[in-house]
């Protein structure tokens, strides 16, 4: 019951947060110089006043700003995200077209980073200062410090250009026409490098968090008690240390999960992955207001949802925590 009440209260709050997000984003976007009409005219290489005026009217940019904002909020309330000015396609269609690609990429990277990160962190903490610990620490530091786009480019250079093992870009072989298992394998081959590139950074974060947190827990009395009881090492690590040490990891994972739907602009760009991040980035450069607002709104909702889920997961992992006030 307490959980339901908590969720209900958070959802009510969410409506106000989202309204605020819409208004702030709307105003921020309009502060940037240039509008989609000017940009399209610029890219067309030739233009005149009539063309720009025509585009502005078509995109609804000729109305007063407050009317545009009011109209937008009203439309959103009716679950209508409007049309992309540039592509003349409903914003919701564009977002949902790109959603699966982003979820696949970030989801795989998320699971990889969480799984491998916690495993490495746990291994490292078992013999702090030993060679395994040093190796893992250096690896994590390197993965954390390497710029994501650079790593991506180096992987492409190695595995696509030199070795020719993996495709350099895209989500599936274009015109491949395969279905079923062949298609899944094809996507997996395309997914490997981007997911690894994206996952390595978060893996490093989880490894370091887990290690630090576990070292702290290891010295606590209940661990000594468990040792005194004669429990085997692996059981102490898994059931006693890790379970108590994993809370900060969950906080961070919740934070990362919220960003999953926002996509990964750099990785999606380097690997030509057709996801949400690139959609948003292109929309920004093209001042495609409706599309960008739509992506922001969608992402904001997801962050809120994942925050609520994270809070509930806390209570499952650690029964001492209660959701509420």
């Amino acid at each position, binding site marked *: 019951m307490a959980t339901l009440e908590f969720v209900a209260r958070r959802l009510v709050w969410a409506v106000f947060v989202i309204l605020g997000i819409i208004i702030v984003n709307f105003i921020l976007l309009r502060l*940037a*110089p*240039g*509008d989609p009409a*000017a*940009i*399209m*005219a*610029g*890219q*067309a*290489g*030739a*233009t*005149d*006043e*009539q*063309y*720009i005026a*025509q585009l502005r009217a*078509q995109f609804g940019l000729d109305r007063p700003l407050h009317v545009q904002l009011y109209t937008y909020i009203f439309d959103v309330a009716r679950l209508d995200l409007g049309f992309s000015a*540039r*592509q*003349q*396609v409903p914003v919701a269609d*564009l977002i949902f*077209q*790109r959603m699966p*690609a982003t979820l696949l990429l970030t989801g795989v990277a998320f699971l990889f980073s969480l799984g491998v990160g916690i495993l490495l962190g746990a291994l490292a903490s078992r013999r702090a200062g030993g060679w395994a610990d040093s190796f893992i620490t250096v690896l994590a530091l390197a993965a954390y410090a390497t710029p994501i786009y650079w790593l991506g*480019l180096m992987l*492409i*250079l190695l595995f*696509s*250009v030199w070795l*020719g093992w993996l*495709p*350099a*870009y*895209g*989500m*599936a072989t*274009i*015109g491949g026409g395969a279905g079923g298992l062949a298609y899944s394998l094809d996507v997996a081959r395309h997914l490997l490098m981007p997911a690894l590139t994206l996952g390595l950074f978060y893996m490093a974060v989880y490894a370091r968090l887990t290690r630090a947190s576990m070292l702290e827990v290891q010295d606590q009395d209940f661990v000594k008690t468990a040792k005194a009881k004669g429990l085997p090492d692996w059981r102490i690590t898994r059931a006693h240390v890790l379970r108590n040490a994993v809370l900060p990891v969950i906080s961070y994972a919740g934070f990362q999960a919220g960003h999953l739907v926002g996509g990964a602009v750099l990785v999606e*760009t*380097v*690997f*030509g992955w*057709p*996801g949400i991040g*690139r*959609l948003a980035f*292109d929309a920004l*450069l*093209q*001042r495609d207001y409706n599309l960008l607002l739509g992506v922001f709104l969608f992402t904001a909702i997801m962050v809120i949802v994942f925050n609520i889920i994270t809070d509930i997961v806390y209570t499952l992992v650690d029964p001492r925590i209660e959701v509420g006030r």
Partner: protein
Amino acid sequence: MSHVTTRYFCKGVLGAAAAAALSLPAMAQDPVDGGTLNIIINPEPPILMLGINQQGPTQAVAGKIYQSLLTYSKELEPQPSIATDWEMSEDGLTYTFTLEEGVTWHDGEPFTAADVVFSYDDFLPETHPRWRNVHNRLASIEAPDDHTVVFTMEEPFPAFLMSFSVDNAPLIPKHIYEGTDYLDNEANQTPIGTGPFKFEEWNRGSYIHLVRNDDYWKDGLPHLDEIYFHVIPDAASRAAAVETGQVHMSRAEDIEFFDVPRLAGMPNLEMTTEGWEMYGPLGWLEFNTRVEPIDDVRFRKAVMHALDRDFIVENIFFGLGNPATGPINSATLFQDPDALVEYDYNLDRANELLDEMGLEPGDDGVRVSLRLLPLPYGETWDRLAEYTRQQLSEIGVDAEIEAADAGTWAERVADWDYDMTFNYLYQFGDPAIGVSRSYISDNIRRTLFTNTMGYENERVDELFNLAAGEVDPEKRQEYYSEVQQILTDELPVAWLIELGFPTIYDTRVHNAVTTAIGTNETYDDVWIEE
């Protein structure tokens, strides 16, 4: 000179026979039917309806779907496309086009002269700024029968025959658009043309798929079964895609110029800068001539002397292009190298000119500080801005680089909110179409690609005006020669480079670039070795 005049003496009928003779088959091999062509497309076009959007990538994709009355050889001679013959009347006021018979739209409807009249008299004047310019000079467009169209001009405008490349004058299906809101028509998402390839699918963010039009009006063509345009947003990944053979072809600025020599040197790849003659892209440093001390012509001359155009072409553009010497690209009609005032690379001369102006350096050696906007189109243009800043510092001019994204740049230049910026413009074959717009005082507007510099000279206005309406090619040349002399003396902009955009393609691909519109061509004669 001489080739220009002969070209214009054979006005009127320049039919299929002459065209065929010009484009002798270079390959001894017989074309192979079938196969898939993979081309990079970047940035992803917004829509593919060529009557509404004319961005470079849109043209390259939609050029396979839509067609125009004419196309152009690399020497800018009109060639037949949907029109088989064309004739200009003696007084230069009437043009009569004969249309190909048996042409159908992709949805099976027959194509007739009514479609031509609709496209050029109704649709494009609404939606296409460049066609609007041509349309303003027309008194009427009529279709005496289903296969003849007659254009009547208000006044002679000999550049008219240069206005029919597919990007400028695509033919639009009347039966789909008549009586609708053109910009808001759902059919814009599923383009219907007469071209050799039909729109099949657009997976946004990934690819655009075109398939063979089996009912194409040229028998036995196209050779290819299908074309995929691959959307690859990152420049390094685009280079890798070409290098690994995942795509057959890159075009325009797909590959950063520093990667071009490397790719061009690979044994399985071919590179050409041909196929841009119709556009004649000319890059320059644009002055806001309202700003002190840029308003003084001596300052502009000093800048011209301070920039080494050979260095720019060789080291910043990696040899892709030629140093620009004046307002008309050497690929465009009526360029006259003998009329130009020349500026050698000479820092001493530049400093002298500034001293002469009384522009004394301060204690820090700086005479004046000015804002410089780089063109937001990739690394090459950033390097050019850095080089320019470096060179100007040699003559005591502090150029402060204000980097901006495309939207900000477009707005600031349109608003005249800059001191100096880089830009490049297409010339569209004839100075009356693509050159005069930058220098005539009528066209000083708060809009991109106009005379944003604010340059005014009555004689220049007069000469461009006379030349545009002059039917005698020799007189036209005289007017254009004089205008080139004045402009190179007064420097409304500092011309830097005739850009040579590379088309890089797999050696197994044939006929990738055959005309003045290069990769915007229909590709009905392109084929791939097995």
